[in-house]
């Protein structure tokens, strides 16, 4: 089961209301390489993994991605706090606002709703882990795109933390891939 902790994994600060930034940050909430896709990808793939290490890493990284999902939601929430309808119009967020108000919704920066088709589960540990490594690189690249577009140094601090975690996750998945391949080779020999 999961336990909720009444805290964020990393502090979220914003310099002030900024609906234009909120509009693009939603990419990492409900986009193809966002945190919801990451958490569901790993937590779905963990069940049929062959080694304890693979099951453990997918459980732990999947859980950490849920904490990142909460961080991205908090960025959106804080960037939208106190924003007026006029500011929403000026930022081109009126279509979003008409449907969702200031709720955080699972969609990407272009307004495409989240879908499970964003991730794969192949029933093949090597295929799954290679997908996971690619997913971490794509998430890192998305955070770098967001950093290029962001004009808020407080937000950038949080985005940099999230970017860095993708690099660490990539490293850990690479180690799990080695572990699973060693396991497969040992099965072939005996």
């Amino acid at each position, binding site marked *: 089961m999961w336990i909720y902790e009444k805290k964020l994994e990393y502090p979220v600060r914003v310099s002030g209301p900024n609906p234009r930034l909120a509009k693009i940050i939603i990419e990492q909430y409900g986009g193809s390489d966002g945190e919801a896709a990451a958490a569901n990808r790993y937590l779905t793939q963990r069940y049929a993994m062959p080694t304890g290490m693979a099951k453990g890493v997918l459980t732990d990284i999947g859980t950490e991605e849920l904490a990142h999902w909460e961080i991205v939601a*908090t960025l959106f929430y804080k960037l939208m706090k106190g924003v007026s309808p006029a500011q929403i119009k000026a930022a081109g967020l009126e279509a979003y606002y008409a449907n969702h108000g200031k709720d955080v919704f699972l969609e990407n920066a272009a307004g495409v709703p989240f879908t499970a088709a964003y991730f794969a589960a192949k029933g093949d540990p090597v295929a799954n882990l290679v997908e996971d490594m690619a997913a971490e690189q794509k998430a890192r690249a998305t955070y770098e795109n967001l950093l290029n577009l962001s004009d808020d140094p407080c937000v950038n601090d949080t985005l940099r933390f999230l970017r860095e975690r993708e690099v660490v996750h990539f490293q850990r998945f690479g180690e799990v891939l080695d572990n699973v391949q060693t396991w497969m080779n040992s099965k072939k020999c005996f």
Partner: protein
Amino acid sequence: MNRKISHQAKLLKEIMSYEFTAVDLNLFLDTHPGDMRALAEYNQTVCQLKKLKHAYEQCYGPLANFGNSPSQHPWRWIDEPWPWQIEF
């Protein structure tokens, strides 16, 4: 930027920093289960976290639900602020 942050946010930030160390060491240990130095550091962090969380919960109520933290009366789990409302 320098902002005045609350006593609650200050205590929480300290917990967050220790817990982040624990998260990172946990992932490292998952793929390096024989690393004695990382394990010792992890176990030390667990001890520190327990103390810090206990002190925080005395002032601000439970940090975790479902039987993982006791509560004063009345039930304090529902007290604001929730994590997304806290100013750091």
